[in-house]
């Protein structure tokens, strides 16, 4: 599951960075790989693609800085939503 999520996230981010496909720990916002407007696009894409609600308290850029950060965020929200 994690591999599938990572592949999907890597592919989406890779389509939007200006300097080639980034490593999974590459901070795309600190390095100018993307414009700031991509942050909003990424949040909305995560909601739409993985069917999870991004709440106001989730709107911390630390959840979206790298491929790995996004993957961890998606997994945590899916785990929280899963039936016990």
């Amino acid at each position, binding site marked *: 599951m994690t591999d599938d999520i990572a592949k999907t996230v890597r592919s989406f981010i890779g389509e939007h960075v200006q300097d080639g496909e980034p490593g999974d720990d590459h901070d795309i916002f600190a390095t100018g790989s993307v414009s700031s407007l991509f942050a909003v696009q990424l949040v909305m894409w995560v909601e739409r693609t993985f069917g999870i609600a991004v709440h*106001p308290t989730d709107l911390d850029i630390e959840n979206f800085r790298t491929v790995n950060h996004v993957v961890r965020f998606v997994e945590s929200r899916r785990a929280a939503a899963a039936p016990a």
Partner: protein
Amino acid sequence: MHSYRLALDEPVAGAHLDELSRRVHYISEAIIGFRLVPGAGDGVEAVEVTTDHPVDAEALGKKLRYVVDTEVRPQLHTPPKVLWRSTADRTPHGDTFAGLLADGVVHEIGPGQVALGAPALAALDALDGLLRDIIREEFGAREYRYPTLLPVTALHRSGYLSSFPQHMMFAARLNGDVDTYRAFAEEVGARETVGDRVLHRCAPVDRCLPPTMCYHTFDQFAGATLPDENTVVTAKGGSFRHESRYHRTLERLSDFTIRETVFLGTADFVREARDRFRRRAVELVEQLGLAGRCEVASDPFFAGAATAAQVSSQRLLELKHELHLDVAPGDSISIGSFNLHEKHFGDAFGIKGPDGATVYSACVGFGLERFTYAVLCQYGWDVADWPAPLAERCATTPQPGKGKR
């Protein structure tokens, strides 16, 4: 006075309420006041507006709903984030401006225009001096004094015209032709007012009043390859923004003074410089014993296609921090902002570093009248009561009135 209830398609709630409130007056100049009408739950279901004259409420409602649906509702619900809060226990009085007027410390010229006299003027210069000390010590900035008028092309290429059209103030002149001058001179000689007889005779509109100093700096370096990896420039000057409503105080002026410092260079440098300046500014505010806070903020983008995304990304990436000081019980104003621009202005103005790469930029600006006003609200205008770093610099200023808090 007329009142209209403008219904929203769906309730607006949470962080969107502030964004709605800051836009209502820009919907139309006819609106002179408004109230958010709560619906069921915690949302707002309508805006009740007041106007001086009868208006087409249906058309006004349509404009409001369009702005809400395109600029407010699509914004991410980023929660407020405070970076620092002062421990100073100073409660400003709510009647400061009336006292300043009575003692002749300030004089109202018109909407959004206030003249400053002693000792407010001395405070403004002293506060600017304290900021310049930080700028010199920390950054060794090059200082310029720019002409007042800014080429319209500078704001055009920066994106300002499409992001903040509501603030624009153009500086027009009569078209250079003897027939124009003659017709104009004859007509104004026969009239008591001239406002509606001017604009159609003006050309070209190639100068405007600057909304802040940094556009002068970006224009100064347009197309340049900077010799140093990092460059810091500071300037103080008259800044102009048309606002939908003006407070009858020094809180929101159309014509005011900004001390602005621009950082050009690498991504790491501009971010570190922006944050270092913010820390030094907070230290200064603490040294002055002023009550306030620093928080994540966004610019008043309006009427552009990307408005919602611009506001949301600024907040999410914390590109803008604001320093607020208290001016009345429960009320504060932003006296300074600390902004990261990424490569936006480097790209827009074609500014490159010595390695040929587009520079990153940041800027830090202080509204000096606002800073001064916050000090007067918290300390009054008897110089003897001011905190030492300020009082020492204002020792020789004339002292009208008492201004005791």
